[in-house]
């Protein structure tokens, strides 16, 4: 019964994930696209929970959906009409090439999986209750992966500086130049 429930949840989450993914890519109004992405993030959070990554699921919702996507929505609101994104054309060759590339990637992944399905993907390891808990993740971050932790913080600092630089107004710059 538990297993069956898990399967049902899984299929619902997968359906939502894929549907919102297609929606992100195909809608013309960026506001709706952003909302679709938020939906996608939520479905992914369900997946993470199923995979015993509780901390990450929470982080996904709080950080990604809660701040990054809000940022997105702010910008879309600021841009207003300018952000409209109709399906404009491109050379047909370009479109064909794009579809071919994406299809190829997909096929490759399936093939690789198929090759490996039998041996490497058999079963999952045994895990403890603390797997995916904030405590264990924090412990790893501060011991084995300390460098990654520190560098990530630098990356964020750089992004903040970049954001400020990009935010200078054109009028002021023209005044300084002329």
């Amino acid at each position, binding site marked *: 019964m538990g297993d069956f429930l898990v399967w049902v949840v899984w299929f619902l989450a997968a359906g939502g994930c894929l549907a919102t993914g*297609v929606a992100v890519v195909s809608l013309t109004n960026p506001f709706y696209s952003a909302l679709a*992405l938020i939906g996608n993030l939520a479905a992914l959070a369900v997946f993470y929970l199923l*995979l015993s*990554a509780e901390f990450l699921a929470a982080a996904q919702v709080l950080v990604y959906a809660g701040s990054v996507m809000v940022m997105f929505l702010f910008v879309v609101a600021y841009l207003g009409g300018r952000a409209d994104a109709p399906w404009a054309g*491109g050379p047909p060759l370009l479109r064909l090439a794009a579809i071919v590339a994406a299809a190829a990637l997909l096929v490759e992944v399936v093939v690789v999986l198929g090759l490996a399905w039998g041996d490497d993907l058999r079963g999952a390891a045994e895990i403890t209750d603390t*797997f995916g808990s904030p405590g264990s993740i924090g412990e790893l971050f501060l011991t084995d992966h300390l460098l990654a932790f520190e560098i*990530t913080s630098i990356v964020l600092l750089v*992004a903040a500086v970049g954001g400020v630089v990009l935010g200078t107004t054109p009028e002021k710059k023209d005044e300084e130049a002329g």
Partner: protein
Amino acid sequence: MQGPGIGWYVIVAAILFGTGALGVMLRRSPLIVLLSLELMLNAANLTLIAFARQQGSLDGQIFALAVMAVAAAEVAIGLGLIVAMARRGVALDVDQAQALKG
């Protein structure tokens, strides 16, 4: 583990990745391109976490967390770029940004 095996998660992630790639390659609005990019990053995250579960090692989740942080930074810059473009009156169309034409 209950529910589908890891392979299913990976396939979903692959489809998601392909969708995002299509969005990057086929859309002209930089906003939509950024969103599709986010989609691809999330697909990668899903793969990472799935394999973390399969290996029983938390390294994959750590990686995924770092990816999330980097994605956030990148979105910040990308949006800053788009805002700057809009402020300077440049049309929001990736096909028009051809300064790299060689």
